[in-house]
């Protein structure tokens, strides 16, 4: 397997980074967090314009039909500045779910607009945001008049407030879970935004007698949450790439700081104890980079170990971010604790990224299961 980037890929990565640095610098977060819309539609349009939303969509639906390898490059760029736009939710999780499970009609109807960024899709499938124990039956579907009536509440659902279309999991009377594609503005749906530590868009979604038709089913009736595994694996790699970018950037910020912060007459970066710890952070980040590289390529190649490697990438990238952010704050010292400096954002971001789609412990257990032990 080749891990070095092709020329095209290098160009995608470079221009993605430029786009993020100019249009989506981390300083934005300070403005966005006090606004009703937690991400910028203008910035999203620029990302879509650059093709980010089309990367994982097939050409026949207006996509670029590249793959996770390329998506990981732009997600990494976005992660460097913690851009809160719903890239992974819409362009990976939603797009993949529709592509993998959708009927021709559903794909024709949904994917083109996802690819050009005009439609925001998001998942609403895990009760309380717990992907490690995703369904406790908080949302239920009854069959009435050949259709469905959905009721319930699902809290801590990411990227739904500004979404146009949701994929909702609902438990039927027989206990089996069915997936539905639902208009986010349908009658009976209320989205109450939540204020999260990472400042990202999330909401509690309430379903009050929401009426759905058989044509809204995604995948099989009662097919269960496992149908989403393929999409979730892709999402996990997307999150991992985002976390990898964040970890890389947190380390860079810290390196810049310790090179210039003077105490005891010298730059604190000259202290060996800090040097060794930073070298260790660097090693963890580079290992995580290898994880993202191999997971994205394996899934693109349809390799059997794709799911396992996706779990690895997710766990290792989030762990690297946690370490980089914590060491960063410690080495920034007092100012690292202040809201004025950016390094704290990376720790806050880790909280959200780690729990999203299952935390590191969950993915280690999953790896073990997939390896048969």
């Amino acid at each position, binding site marked *: 397997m080749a891990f070095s980037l092709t020329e095209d890929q290098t160009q995608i990565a470079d221009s993605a980074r430029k786009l993020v640095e100019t249009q989506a610098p981390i300083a934005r977060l300070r403005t966005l967090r006090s606004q009703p819309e937690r991400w910028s539609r203008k910035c999203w349009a620029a990302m879509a314009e650059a093709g980010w939303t089309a990367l994982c969509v097939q050409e026949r639906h207006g996509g670029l039909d590249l793959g996770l390898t390329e998506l990981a490059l732009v997600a990494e760029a976005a992660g460097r500045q913690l851009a809160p736009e719903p890239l992974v939710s819409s362009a990976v999780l939603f797009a993949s779910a529709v592509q993998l499970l959708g009927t021709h009609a559903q794909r024709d109807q949904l994917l083109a607009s996802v690819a050009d960024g005009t439609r925001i899709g998001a998942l609403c499938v895990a009760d309380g945001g717990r992907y490690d124990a995703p369904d406790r039956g908080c949302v239920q579907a009854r069959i009435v008049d050949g259709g469905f009536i959905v009721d319930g509440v699902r809290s801590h659902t990411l990227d739904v407030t500004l979404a146009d279309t949701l994929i909702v999991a609902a438990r039927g009377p027989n206990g089996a879970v069915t997936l539905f594609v639902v208009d986010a503005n349908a009658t009976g749906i209320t989205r109450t935004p939540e204020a999260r530590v990472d400042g990202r868009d999330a909401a509690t979604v309430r379903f009050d007698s929401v009426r759905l038709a058989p044509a809204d089913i995604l995948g099989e009736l009662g097919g269960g949450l496992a149908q989403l595994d393929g999409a979730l694996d892709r999402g996990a790699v997307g999150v991992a790439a985002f976390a990898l970018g964040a970890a890389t950037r947190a380390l860079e910020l810290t390196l810049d700081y310790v090179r210039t912060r003077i105490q*005891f007459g010298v730059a604190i970066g000259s*202290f060996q104890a800090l040097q060794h710890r930073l070298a260790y952070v660097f090693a963890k980040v580079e290992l995580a980079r290898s994880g993202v590289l191999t997971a994205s390529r394996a899934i693109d190649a349809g390799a059997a170990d794709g799911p396992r490697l996706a779990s690895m990438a997710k766990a290792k990238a989030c762990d690297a971010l946690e370490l980089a952010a914590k060491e960063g704050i410690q080495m920034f*010292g*007092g100012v*690292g*604790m202040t809201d004025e400096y950016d390094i704290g954002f990376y720790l806050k971001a880790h909280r959200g990224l780690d729990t999203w789609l299952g935390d590191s412990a969950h993915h280690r257990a999953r790896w073990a299961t997939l390896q048969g032990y």
Partner: protein
Amino acid sequence: MKRVSVPAGRLEPRSDAYPIVPTRGALEMSLEDFRAEAALWIVENAPRSLYGTRSGRFDGYWGGKKQPPVSEDVARWLAACVERGWTAPDWPTELGGGGLSRQHTEIISEILTELKLPPPLVGFGLAMIGPTLLDFGNDAQRAAHIPPIVRGEVRWCQGYSEPGAGSDLASLATRAVRDGDDFVIDGQKVWTSHADKSDWIFALVRTNPDAKKQSGITFILIDMSTHGVSTRPIELISGSSPFCEVFFENVRVPAANVVGQVDHGWTVAKALLGYERSMIGAAMGGQLRDAEADLVARARRALDAPSGQLPSALTRDEIADLAMDEACFNVTVQRVIEGMKGGKKPGSESSILKVVGSALKQRRFDLAVKIAGPESQGWEGDAFAADDLSLTRDWLRSRGNTIEGGTSEVQLNIIAKHVLGLP
């Protein structure tokens, strides 16, 4: 801790007045007699509403002109103690103290803890600048500042750290230039707790810019209402905080406010840092209590396991490991306290308290957020339980524990050099 030995049935305050036992005789009594008598006096004088209101070591009224007591009972409790000299029981009576010994003071403190009563007064005046002035101040300074501290009339804050002088405190740059009978001060302090609520600040300023580092630093007392002093609260990653920046612009301070000698403030500062360290170290133990129960309760909620063995062996293992370390740490704190009781210098094990205690606190909250999972992502609002919202804040705030009051790196340097004897 020794149980308070008061007659049975006397732990509740009585409504009828009880004659005040004259303090003067205390030094002649046995300590056990003093304990009984002190307990009686406290039971008689502490307002009923204050019982059980103390939870942490720093609970209590901080005094000063800017923050009045939160209730009349708090004011009454303060007044009773001031009257008796028991806001500072072991300070000289002529300055408003109680004229007692350290042991008497400890007994009073034990009784208050036992009854979960807040001390009548807390703060940097009593804990830091007071002892410093008693050791290093001149008569005029003591007479001017100690009585208002004892009476809770003036609240003090500490102006040490600067943006360019954190771990390397001696590199501070706030300048004080002599001008007639005054010094004119320009510069900035940072991490000044409650500066916005304080009346006076004791500060380190550079009086000789040519001298090397520690020399050329002066310890000076500054009235915060002086023209040119301003403060700005600091917002932390965990939200608002007691910390402030303090700015000095052309601030005129009488030279008479210098404690110790001009250019030789470092000696005073170091002694005061000693008081601060012992305060932080001792406080650390208390903050760790109940971590295990809290984590187990969280895990039971998160794992839907209201009783029995937790279904996650990993979580069990991590909680038990942390609980063991905390238990060992708490015993270590006790060893230190016990070792110092005979008035001896603390043993080498005391050097680890700050670095271990702060790391344990971080581990506690790291583990808590891991257990809480998505419920640990809240910032505000009602999508998250109040308890979970404070967890998020406490977790973020705990990152500061290994930085404030001497970073862990500085502590490890000290252990390596002064305890382990490394070159």
